[in-house]
């Protein structure tokens, strides 16, 4: 066991897979010589050299096009898009090309590739560098989507993503980069499509993702002290989605609250609410409730950003109010 930051876990996760498989290449802007703008890839160039770890121009379509072409011809590239907001400049390659080509070709081509990106707010970077875009991806058939919330999950899910034969969007929560956690020694390999129950409670289930996981956990502590005993689930993987675990916990507790950093409309929370009501309607003791960032662009100022993104306090009061109705 060692304590690592989420940031350090990125390089460790990539290195683990690059050591194992010579077909794993890594490319992106400022990722090699500089070690990444978030310092998430420090040391990779030194260990694997400039042929496998490559700096690119500011050409996101070329970065992902290169990853796609390499994946369909036998390699397993990892591509970095610096901020997930920048998916907007290369969205075609993601949604129209990578996501659809296996299906369109009747299974002739495979896309074993990983696209990493820094995701989410909390750094006061403003509306174009702070978005949580997991829902953009979840709405597109053909993409797998994972969002780790701990350093151990970063490594384990990275391994699972790299080894997966399908394209995986790997969203790293920028606000979590400095956070620390225990990581097992040796190889760490996880599985896509498994949610994790972090805490088991009798009264309600809080379902959270990424940066909202520690907040949901903290809220559950406070709620527990006040007599509301909550399950907390870390979704971890939006596609494949572990409906098994989520439906079981929601059915057991009778209430569901989603905690989402993304803007409100058409989020993974809406999808979960829909699945839960479609499949467990008569197990529910009350309406599922979504706790989200409002449907607004994110403001830059610290005071405003803090108001926008769900806080521990907002989670606590929302759950209390709904449970006491």
């Amino acid at each position: 066991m060692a304590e690592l930051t989420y940031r350090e876990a990125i390089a460790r996760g990539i290195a683990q897979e690059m050591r194992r498989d010579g077909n794993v290449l890594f490319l992106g802007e400022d990722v090699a010589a500089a070690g990444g703008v978030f310092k998430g890839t420090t040391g990779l160039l030194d260990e694997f050299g400039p042929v496998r770890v490559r700096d690119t121009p500011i050409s996101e379509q070329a970065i992902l096009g290169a990853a796609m072409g390499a994946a369909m011809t036998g390699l397993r590239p990892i591509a970095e898009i610096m901020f997930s907001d920048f998916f907007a400049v290369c969205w075609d390659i993601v949604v129209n090309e990578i996501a659809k080509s296996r299906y369109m070709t009747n299974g002739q081509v495979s896309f074993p590739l990983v696209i990493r990106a820094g995701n989410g707010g909390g750094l006061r970077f403003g509306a174009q560098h702070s978005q949580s875009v997991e829902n953009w991806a979840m709405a597109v058939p053909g993409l797998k989507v994972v969002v780790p919330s701990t350093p151990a999950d970063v490594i384990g899910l990275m391994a699972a993503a790299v080894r997966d034969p399908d394209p995986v969007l790997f969203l790293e929560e920028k606000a979590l980069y400095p956070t620390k956690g225990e990581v097992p020694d040796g190889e760490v390999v996880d599985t896509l499509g498994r949610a994790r129950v972090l805490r088991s409670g009798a009264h309600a289930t809080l379902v959270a993702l990424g940066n909202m996981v520690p907040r949901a956990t903290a809220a559950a502590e406070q709620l527990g002290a006040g007599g509301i005993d909550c399950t907390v689930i870390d979704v971890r993987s939006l596609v494949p989605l572990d409906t098994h675990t989520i439906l079981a916990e929601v059915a057991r507790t009778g209430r569901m609250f989603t905690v989402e950093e993304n803007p409100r409309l058409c989020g993974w929370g809406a999808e979960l609410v829909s699945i839960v009501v479609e499949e467990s309607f008569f197990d529910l003791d009350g309406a599922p409730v979504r706790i989200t960032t409002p449907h607004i662009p994110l403001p830059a100022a610290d005071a405003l950003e803090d108001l926008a993104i769900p806080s521990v306090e907002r989670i606590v009061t929302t759950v209390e109010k709904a449970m006491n109705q």
Partner: protein
Amino acid sequence: MDAACHIGGRRLALYDQQIRLRYFEKRAYDLFLENLVKGTSHLSLGQEAIAGAFGVAMRHDDYTFATYRGHAHTLARGVPMAPVLAELLGRENGLMAGKGGSMHLTSVEHGVMGSYAIIGAHLPIACGAAWSAQYRGSGQVAVAFFGDGTTNIGAFHEALNFAAIWRLPVVFVCENNLYMEYTRTSTVTAVPRPAADRASAYGLEPVLADGNDADEMYAVATAALDRARAGEGPTLIEALTYRHGGHSRADPAKYRPPAEVDEWLARDPIPMYRKRLVDAGVDAAALDAIEKTAMEDVDAATEEAKAGAAPGADLLFRDVWADGGSSWRN
């Protein structure tokens, strides 16, 4: 096709390619008139010398990246006609069982790594295949075909720069047929030669070729492929040509001046090439035989394609993922 090593054989191969592409596209058009082609389709009638020459010049394991106008580029790599035609007809025996359609022909077995219907998207993807070949040291080259109108989209710029700086073994082939869908490309392009006049922006030499001359195209193709294989990086070729028909399906192409159409029909690559071969002493009977076989193949492919069943419901949920299925949940 490595076998086409002596000039006589190569020239017959070039004729064969063009004839087969021509007959196929004419048949595709007839089937469209019979209302059997589902969705849209974009023919290469008049542009066969380009795809044909590359088909002859490329190594069997090189990669082709085509567009929605990709029948010719797919067939030129040796993909049989029947599954291609069946794909246009939306049949189960189609190249992709009907799931892709005319705009997405793919045959990995033949190095045809896909046909892409979003303008420019395949140019960076071809860079990726070339990068992979470079990394694996396989000596393969990726060839991407596209139109004149495509030179104005962002992906073109990113791909060209990327290919140049990494010295990727990729050949970009702009088939300049003067038009986008219904708009003359020169009216919306800042330079007269949409590809050649951009080469220097990527540190490349301009390469302008007569796209209706199969011999010239073969020479240009070979030079670019050799250069790529030698590790000298990408080539951007602009091949001048003309499409005989409309942009797609029912487009009557009325936006083109009749004199221009006539001029280009007089430069039809296929009769020109036939004449050149005959003038050079090739036995007309050999050419007749090529034509006959090609027509027989098209007829047989038509029968086979038409005999295909509609794809079944099981296909609908197949191959979203590598596990063969479509489930997004555990």
